[in-house]
Each structure stands twice: as C-alpha cells, then as structure tokens.
C-alpha cells in the first residue's frame, strides 16, 4: 500500500519547506492553507479476497464520480467529468461473462436499474478515441446518475479500513520533503485528432429495448469569432437538440430524466515536450478522443447550477399516462373488429350497390 498526500495552495510562493516538520517518522505541516488530496494505492494482493476476486475480472477498470454540487477546481487538478458515476472498463479477454451490475449495486447504489441479464459489454457504449491512436486503455463506458457515494464510503470504512489497515502500519509517511513537488505543465505537440463518432444506436427504438445505459456526445462548438479576437466579451449560447427515446407508459403524464451538465473545455495543443499536464486525470471519456499531448482547459460551471445548486438539468419526457388508457385496448380492438366486419359485409353482402347503378344512370344522363 502506498499513500500520497498532495497539498494544493493558492499561491505556491507562500509555501516554504520550513513549514514541514518530520518528527519520529511522521510528518506534520504548520500554517499551511491548502486543499489536501489523499491518494491511496493498493496492490491487488493486499485487498480482501472478495474485492480481489471481483477486480480480477477486468483488464481495465476506472471509476470516476463527481458531485452534483458546483465546485471550484484548483489547478493543476482542473480536469472534470460530468456529475454522476462514470465507469470505464474493459473485461478480461478470458472472462466469459462479466457483470457490471454486481459492482453497481453492491458498491455504489443498491437501487441501480441495471439488468443482471446483460453482461458488461452489452450495457456499455464505446469511449471516444482518436482514429490514428491506439485504442484507449478502457474502451467501454457506463454512466449512472448517482448523487452520493455514501455506500462506497461505508464500504471502504468497513472492508478496507478494517481489514487492510488493521494489518499494516498506517503511519509511514514519506519523511523526505524533497519528494513533495509542485509540478508544472508537461506538454507535447501532437497532430490534431478528429474524434471518432460513437456508433449511432437505433434512435427509433424505445428506451426499454436498448441495453446501453444511454449515450455520450462530444461536440466541437462554433465559437463566435469576435471572442477570439478579443473584440467583445458577451455571453453566448449553444443549443444542442437532443433526441428523446420513448419511455415506458406509467401512471403519470411525464417521466423525469436527469441530464448532467456537460464538461466544457478547450483541448489545446500542448506547448512543451512531454505528455500534457501530469496532474490531469486520464480515462475521463473524452481525453482519449484527442490523442496524446493535449492540454484541457476547463470552463467552470455556474456556481448556482440549475438554480437549486445542482449541476443537472431535469427533462420532463412525455409518456403515455396509464391512468387515462383504460379504453385503449378494448377501444382499438373493437374498432378494428367492427371495421373488418363492415368491410366483409361490403365485400360479400350489401348487394351490388345502388351506388354503382347510380353511376351508370349518371353516365347515361351525361350522354343524353
């Protein structure tokens, strides 16, 4: 097990190594105003057997979660994902059938509507990736609108902290202040890579027959030119029409669907040799669309969010209201049967029709 703590200060010049103190193999910080990132790395064999067995099914598994609350990202940890739970994965080739639902329900959300009938590849959508680049680490993705990770937290407390931490000496911080570094941006110049579109699913199919969780989209925005030239500063709006699938009929007129706010960024060619910002997180779903050597500059979302302080928009999808549909079945079948019988009567009964004779008469009259 390894731990890394990173302290993020607003102004790096205010920090001096004197603020660090190492006493008896443990580290303390004095008078530092900073945000702490605590990173814990386990070897697979250090994990409880249950978790280890689960993880062995995957070639790659990356899980990201972002809160619904707007937050200010402190550089260099500026990368963002849309609020909710993102899972990027690739099942092990030798694994016959891998379930994602197990993971979702047991670790994140017992009420997740995933289906146990479908394996992890069926419910996934492909991750964007630049055509000329090799496949991204994990080529599949799943998203779920998840507002808290309380279940994961309590799971970590119960399983990992009780089992792993009990068997190890917890206080082994790195005593060498030299190892605590503030990194710059390492970047590399690379060719512009066009994003490869995801497979368009059959848009006519209703929600309940589509095994995939949903879909992601990556748009290149047409930016007003006066902004680029620094001539004007004004708000501008981008409208992206969405296609709604049919949702199941239910006992209300609308079904509410959460649409997490998108991440908005510039993908810039990196300026120096290297591979982008070393603090940028990877496997976010969109980074692989741009190939190597890109630096992402994010536009922070509005602090007030959607008005209730959340980074989500709710869409009311009109559905068939079953409360008003009592007559639909009998009505439809009844009308069709009556229509069929009526036509049979016209075909087989109903005489040869005075109407036809009427035409004959009329013709005669015309001729006369």
């Amino acid at each position, binding site marked *: 097990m390894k731990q890394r703590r990173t302290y993020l200060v607003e102004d790096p010049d205010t920090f001096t190594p004197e603020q660090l103190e190492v006493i008896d193999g443990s580290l303390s910080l004095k008078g530092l105003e900073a945000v702490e990132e605590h990173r814990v790395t386990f070897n697979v064999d250090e994990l409880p057997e249950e978790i280890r067995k689960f993880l062995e099914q995957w070639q790659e598994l990356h899980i990201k979660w972002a809160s619904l609350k707007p937050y200010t990202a402190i550089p260099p940890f500026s990368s963002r994902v849309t609020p909710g739970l993102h899972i990027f994965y690739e099942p092990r080739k030798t694994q016959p059938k891998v379930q994602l639902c197990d993971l979702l329900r047991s670790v994140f959300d017992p009420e997740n509507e995933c289906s146990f009938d479908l394996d992890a590849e069926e419910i996934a959508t492909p991750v964007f990736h630049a055509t000329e680049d090799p496949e991204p680490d994990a080529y599949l993705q799943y998203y779920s609108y998840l507002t808290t990770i309380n279940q994961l937290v309590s799971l970590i407390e119960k399983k990992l902290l009780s089992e792993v931490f009990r068997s190890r000496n917890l206080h082994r911080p790195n005593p060498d202040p030299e190892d605590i570094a503030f990194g710059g941006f390492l970047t590399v110049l690379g060719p512009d890579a066009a994003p490869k579109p995801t*497979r*368009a*699913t*059959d*848009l*006519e199919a*209703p929600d*309940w027959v589509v095994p995939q969780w949903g879909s992601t989209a990556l748009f290149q925005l047409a930016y007003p030119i006066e902004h680029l030239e620094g001539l004007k500063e004004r708000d501008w709006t981008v409208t992206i*029409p969405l296609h709604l699938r*049919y949702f*199941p*009929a*239910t*006992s209300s*007129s*609308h079904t509410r669907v959460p649409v997490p706010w998108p991440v908005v960024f510039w993908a810039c060619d990196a300026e120096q040799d290297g591979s982008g910002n070393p603090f940028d997180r990877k496997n976010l779903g969109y980074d692989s669309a741009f190939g190597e050597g890109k630096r992402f500059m994010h536009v922070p979302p509005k602090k007030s969010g959607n008005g209730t302080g959340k980074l989500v928009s709710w869409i*009311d*999808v*009109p*559905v*068939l*209201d*079953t*409360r*008003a*549909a*009592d007559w*639909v*079945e009998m*009505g*439809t*079948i009844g*009308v*069709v*049967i009556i*229509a*069929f019988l*009526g*036509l*049979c009567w*016209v*075909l*087989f009964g*109903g005489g*040869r*029709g005075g*109407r*036809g*004779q*009427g*035409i004959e008469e*009329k013709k005669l009259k015309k001729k006369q």
Partner: protein
Amino acid sequence: MALSAFFGSSQAVFSAAVVLRAVFLVYGLFQDAYSPMKYTDIDYFVFTDAARFIAQGQSPYARDTYRYTPLLAWLIYPTTWLGFWFSFGKVLFAVGDIVTGWMMFRILRTYHNMSQERALKYASIWLLNPMVATISTRGSSEGLLGVLVTVLLWAVLAKRVALSGFLLGFAVHFKIYPFIYAASIIWWLDDDRIKGHRNSRPSPSATFGNQLLSFLNPQRLILALCSLLTFMVLNMIMYLAYGWPFLEHSYFYHLIRIDHRHNFSPYNTLLYLNSSPGANQNASAQPSLELERLAFLPQILLSAVLIPLVLSKRDLPSTMLAQTFAFVAFNKVCTSQYFLWYMMFLPYYLPDSTLLHSRPVGISALILWVLGQVFWLQQGFQLEFNGYSTFVPGLWLSGIFFFIVNVGILGIIIRDVKSKEPHGRELYATSKATKKTS
C-alpha cells in the same frame, strides 16, 4: 382554354413534373444548408452511409438501421462521389417518379381507352402531386417502388406473364408488401382473360380435380414460378454476398418490429401501452389480452385474400388500390410515405368512381381524410414540440378517427369495384385488338 391546352400536351405535363421536382430538389439543398429543420429525410443518410460502406468494400448492414436490400445501396453508389453527387439518389428517385407517371399515362391510354388529355389529367394525380414530389426529393425510395409496381401492372395488363413474375419477385425482394398483389394477379389470370373470350363457366358437375386443373393454367404457373425464382435468386445472391445480416435486417426485422413511436396507425397507442415494461402493473385495469399480436390477421385477410378474390376479376388496377389501401389502413405502422403506395393506383380507379362522380361523397371523403391527418398532426406537434403528453386521448383518438375515415373510403372503393361487371375483360381484349389493327 389554357388548362386544356396544358393537359393536351404530354410534353407540357412531363416538363412541369420535372420542373416541380427540380425546384423541390434545389429548395431542399437550401433548407438543409440554412435551416435547423432538415429537408432531407433521415433515411437518405442511412442509404448514403450504406453506399459508402459498400464503396469501402464493407457490408451495407455495417450502417445501423439499414433495413433494405443491398441493391438499394448499390443503386445509389454514385452518392459516394463528392459534391453534387450526394444528391444522385434523390435525382434517381425523382426520375423513378417520372417514369412511374409515364407508365401510368401509357396504361390509361392503352387499357382504359382514354384520350391523351384525359390520361394526362389522371396521370397528373401522381406526376404533379406535390406530396409525391416532396417524398422522392427528400430522398425516400418510394419512387423506385412506384416504378416497379406500375411496370408490374402494365406487364400484367399486357399479358407479359414471365416479365410480370420477374417484376413481382423483384418488388417483393425490394419492399415485401407487394406480395399482396400476387393473389389478385394470379386470380385475374384466368383462361378467359388470356384467350380473350368467355369460356363456359365450369359446370356444376366439374370435379374438384378438374377445377384445380383449370385453375392451374400455364400463365398462373409461369407467374408463380418466375416470381418465386426471381425472389429466391435475388435472396440467394444477397445472402451469399452479405450473409445473415441481410436476412435479419431486410426481412426478419420487418416481421418482428414493434413501432412505438407515434404514427398514423390505429394500433400505435396500444402497441406502446402493451410493450411498456411494467405498464400493466401500474394500471388498475385487468391484464392485457395482447390481441394486437393478431393485428396481421384482418390486414392480411383483407388485402391478400378477400379483396383479391372478390374484386380482381372485375378490375385489376382498382383491386390493387383496394388491397393497398386495406394493407396501409390496417398496418401496425403507418406514415405518410405509405400513402404513396396506394396513390399510385388512384388514376385507374378515380375516373369511374363514386368519389369523382358524386361530388358530396368525394369532397367529404377528401376533407375527412385530410382532417384525420390534421387532428393527428396537431396532437403530434403538441407532443413533439411542446412536450405535452398527448398520447391519450389525443393521438389515440385521432389515429382511430383517421382509421375510420380510411375504412369508409375503402368501403366506397370496394363497392365501386364490386358494382363493375367482370366483363372488364372484353374491354381489355378489344382494346388490345384495336391497338393491333391501328
């Protein structure tokens, strides 16, 4: 009179038909370029994508939602070249429209003994119909179907039986539903028809075996054989070239599809309701009988069995109209493109119809037919653009209303055709004779 001079000249009518389509085509390019509401049909992108896959040596079924024969993608292969070639398919479909109109004109002249002016007027129901021109220039392939079916009708009336069989097999390969015409054409092809005179009716004492023998006359056998052979050979070629996806997407998909998205079909709301997971648990109503699974029964019985049996010997083109009308009205999915399927038969039926001879009946039928769509479209607009849940009662009732209007019109058509004597055959025979002597 200017109008009669116009309809007196086939050049004028066909030029107008071409100009109409050219204007729509160019207008479509502008709308696509400048409006967020695209003129081009979404299906056209499916066809052209499939053609691009073919050009890259791949299967057209690599394109999701390509549910047609690979022939269609091959036909519009030039759309994969750059620039204006992208519109090649639309031009092809529009040319198909014009050819269809020309064949209609020929049929009306030859087999309905119409004067040139009259024939051009009735062919204009198709040729100068803005709905027809719009649908093909938006890139919908119905125009090609029009050619196939109209040439099929011509071939049958001209007693070119082998060619008819080939066209029938081809049309079914192309779009499945023309299989309903097999029944009416087969039934129509009796000995009297071919020999041009009325044989003595089978005497009551004729045995079943004799009746069967006289039913299985050579022309019926040739038609059946040629159509089956064409259909099977085409399928074999496509299967060998593109394998299982061809069968899956061109045929099986259409058999198992359930169209939930709102359309004109009377079944639409019911299909949405009964295919919704969990909808029945929520409703207080009793569990569904799932009778909609039997929806094909009235549809196929009417369009492929009963109407052909009763009507086809009286008037084949009008019978085909009635069949198609029944097929579309009772179908589980119905969009305005399907109206083209029966519109291509109107020029043959309308001249002697109650709809044209009785002004109140004709005008009410037209108004009701349009109103049914207006009601439905208004509800559809509220759903799609304003997000109101208009499924019930709005969309459902307007769909049912439109269905009743359609059934009423179909009833009038059936009565009209039924009131014709089966002596239509002499008419055809004489028309052919006069043609030969002239």
